[in-house]
Every structure is written in structure tokens, then in C-alpha cells.
């Protein structure tokens, strides 16, 4: 890269980040002499954040949460795509189940947390189960929609090429549906994060949700703020990871789209 190229990149970065930096600075300054117990100075929050969460942090509340999320989400993703493929392949089954599937998709998943509590009791199983359940429906529904939207011309092409049904499914239908599947996976991730926190706030003995609720109950508002900060960072990080993976996996899609747009 040339030197002016580097400079330009720096300028672009500065051009888009100045407001963010400015707002953080403003928060720092405005909160610095705050006496409100609810709104401690940012300085104090960051100090406590360092004590609690950074490398030598005392609290390990995040690990179990992320484990619950990872397992629950993975189950939902695999099951969602698999069930979607079956529903696509067997139209009768799809028609028959669609009202129930739609009901469960629309049902806000947190209402089932009490039921899950009754079923699994307090603990990791409950969190994981409710995350898997909640993430499953948006993933399933988007995947079915994506599969059904397969271009008939592509199916005809596959047939004239003499591809077998499984081969067509694997090489034509599934890749074609992948952009919308990814949209479903993204929606599922958002739901998963909410359920991770809520389930721990209601029925867990550890995890970030539990940490926040404990802090709130003990009037440890600075600790509570660090929890909010952790959630913000985790949410952003998961989002960035997801977008990165999506860009990589759907390179063909974005490539084709930008060509189409340039025309």
C-alpha cells in the first residue's frame, strides 16, 4: 500500500469513528462527578470492569453463558436446517405442520421459560434447552422459505444436466437458499442472546444474566453497569464474527450482487 493509501484509510476510519469516540468522551466527562448511585462515573465502571472481567478478573460468569449459547445455538442451527430440508422435500408434511410451526415461530420464546423451569429445573439444561428452542423457529422458517424460493429455471437446468435428486438438493437447492438461511441464522442469534440472558436471570445460579440480577438485587450498581458493558461487547463481537463468517461463506452471492448492481 502506498503512503497516501494508508493516510486515506486512516482518514476514512477517523471520519466514521469520531462521533463514537466523542460520545464516549462525553460520557466520561459528564459522569465524572456523578453522585447518583444509578449512574456511577465511567471511570469507576471501567476500573471495576477491569477488576471483574479482564484477564485476571474475579468473575467467570461469562463462560457458562457462552457455553449454553454455543450448544443451544448449534443444536438449533443443525436441527433447523435439517428439518427445513425434510419439510421442503415432503410438501404434504410441510402443509400439515405449517400452522403449528407458524404458531411456535410467532410465540415469543421467553413465555416458555417458566415452563422450561418446571420441566428442567434451575440450571444449565434449562438455559440450553430454551435457547435451542427459541433459535430453532426463525432458522427453520427462513430456511424453508429460502428452499422454496429456488429458481425453477435452475431446477430445470439441473434436470437437463441429469443430476440425481440428492445431488440437486445438495448442489443446487441448498446453496441457492443459503442467503436466506443465513438471514434466519442471524435472526436466531439475536433471539439466542436475549434468551441466554433472560433464562439466567430467571433460573440459573451462574452466568452473566445471573450476575446482573444479583448485582441489581444487592444494589451493586457499578457491577451491574460492568455487566451491561460485557453484554454490549459480547453482542457486538458475536455480530462481527457472524458478519465475517457470512461474508466468507456467501462470497459468491455478494460478488454476483455487486456485478448486477453495477450494470
Amino acid at each position, binding site marked *: 500500500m502506498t503512503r497516501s493509501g494508508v493516510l486515506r484509510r486512516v482518514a476514512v476510519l477517523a*471520519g*466514521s*469513528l*469520531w*462521533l*463514537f469516540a466523542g*460520545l464516549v468522551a462525553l460520557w466520561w466527562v459528564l459522569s465524572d462527578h456523578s453522585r447518583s448511585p*444509578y449512574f456511577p462515573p465511567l471511570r469507576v465502571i471501567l476500573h471495576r470492569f477491569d477488576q471483574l472481567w479482564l484477564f485476571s478478573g474475579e468473575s467467570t460468569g461469562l463462560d457458562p453463558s457462552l457455553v449454553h449459547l454455543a450448544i443451544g445455538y448449534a443444536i438449533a442451527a443443525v436441527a433447523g436446517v435439517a428439518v427445513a430440508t425434510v419439510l421442503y422435500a415432503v410438501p404434504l408434511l410441510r402443509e*400439515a*405442520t*405449517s*400452522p*403449528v410451526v*407458524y*404458531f*411456535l415461530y*410467532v*410465540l*415469543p*420464546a*421467553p*413465555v*416458555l*421459560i*417458566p*415452563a422450561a*423451569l*418446571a*420441566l428442567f429445573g434451575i440450571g444449565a439444561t434449562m438455559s440450553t434447552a430454551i435457547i435451542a428452542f427459541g433459535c430453532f423457529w426463525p432458522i427453520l422458517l427462513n430456511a424453508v422459505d429460502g428452499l422454496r424460493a429456488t429458481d425453477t429455471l435452475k431446477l430445470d437446468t439441473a434436470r437437463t444436466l441429469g443430476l440425481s435428486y440428492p445431488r440437486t438438493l445438495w448442489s443446487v437447492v441448498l446453496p441457492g437458499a443459503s*442467503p*436466506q438461511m443465513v*438471514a434466519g441464522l442471524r*435472526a436466531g442469534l*439475536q*433471539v439466542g*442472546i*436475549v434468551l441466554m*440472558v*433472560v433464562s439466567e*436471570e*430467571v433460573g440459573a445460579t451462574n452466568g452473566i444474566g445471573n450476575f*446482573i*440480577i444479583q*448485582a*441489581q438485587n444487592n444494589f451493586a*450498581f457499578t457491577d*451491574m*453497569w460492568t*455487566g*451491561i458493558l460485557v*453484554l*454490549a461487547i459480547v*453482542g*457486538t463481537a*458475536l*455480530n462481527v464474527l457472524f458478519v465475517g463468517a457470512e461474508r466468507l461463506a456467501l462470497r459468491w452471492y455478494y460478488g454476483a450482487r455487486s456485478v448486477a448492481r453495477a450494470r
Partner: protein
Amino acid sequence: MLVVLAALGLWQLLTATGALNRASFPTMWSTLRALGDQLTTSGFWTTIGQTVEGWALGLALGGTAAVLVGSAIGLSRLASRSTAPVIEFLKAVPSIAILPLAIVVLGTHLQMKLTLVGYAVFFPLVIQVVYGVRALDPTVADTATTLQVRGLRRFLVVVLPSAAPFIATGLRISAATALILEIVAELIGGAPGLGQRILLAENAGPTMFPLMYAFVLVTGILGIVLTGMFTLGERRVLHWHESQRNLRGATR
């Protein structure tokens, strides 16, 4: 309809025969009976009203703010560029993260629900609005300029309608999120509404489980009704766009 009956039948079969644990899964029949009992009480309808109120007001507040702020940002390239990282970050902050804060500062009142629901609605929607306003077709913009359509009229008659499909998609997604957060606010924040009744029923022990599932059913039906209203409204407002609608393009 047949399918729904079949599903209900299957539920009854699984629970009545004991294939599913009777203690944690009430039978379909007892659940429907609990629901039937509720239908005649006034408290039941008040509860639904409370949930719908929080949902609707939160959606209206967050939605209006998002459209206003998003339009203002979208009209300037510098503003869109500078605010994008802030909005993306705040959007990634799961709205439930601010729940404890909202509870300690605002208590379990309507304000708490509205803050939470409004926050959950605002950020995803504001991104859609900015995106929609920025995506104004250059030919459309040129046409408006040559016709001398300027200022507020240009915004109302040209910019807003052309961003409407994006805004509608954002609203539809936000409406679902809003209901989730409304329930969470009741479940954890202890604000009155369906979520609170569900938790209370669970706390009361297995004898009250039919009631808990009755409320779960009601929440789902409420979800279907509210979502259906949105889809209908969208179809009416955006009928002109139906032909070229590309939801996948609009959601990202």
C-alpha cells in the same frame, strides 16, 4: 383448521396416556378448560390489555423516533457515516442488557416497559430507515429536482414513500421484537401483563400449570393477531410496491 385440531388431539393423547410427564405437561383438555374459565373474568382481558398497551406504545414511541432520527441522519452522507458505528454498537447491545438499569431507575411501571420496548425497536429500525432514505434512486431524485419538488414536500412525497418498503420491513421485525421484550419486561421486570401471569402460575406449582399453558397459548394467539395486522397494513400501504418487492433485499 383440521391440522390445528389434529395437533390438539395429539397433545391430549400424549399427556392423557402419560407419554409425557403429567406433572409438568397438563393435558390439552385441562388447559383449554383453564382458558375457558379465564375468558369470563375481567382480569384476563385487563391483562391482555396491559400487554398490548406496552407493546403498542413502545412500538409507536420507538418507531416514531426511529423514523424521525433515521430520516434526519439519512439525508446527510456525513451524518450516516459518523453515526453508523454508534448505532451498530448500540444495536448490538442486547436490549435486555438495559433491563436491570430500567428496573432500578424506573421501577416496574409502564415507563420501564416503554423504555425497554422502545429501545429494542429503535435501533434496528433506525438502521432500516437510514438505509431506505440513502437508497433513494438517483433517477427519482433527479425527477423530483426537475419538477421543482423541494423541501418538506420532497421529503414527504418522494423520499418517505421510496423508503417505505425498508421502513415496513424494519417495522415488521421490530413488532415481533417488541412483543418479546414486552414479555421479558413482565417476566423479569415484574410489570403487569401476560408474562407476569405466566410466571405467577408457574410459581404457584403444578396445579396451576394448566393456567400457565393457557396464558402461553393466549400469548401465541396474540402474536399471530398482531403480526397479521402488520402484514395486512403493509399490504395496503405498499400495494404499489408489490410487483417489485424483494424482502430479502430489504432486510439486509
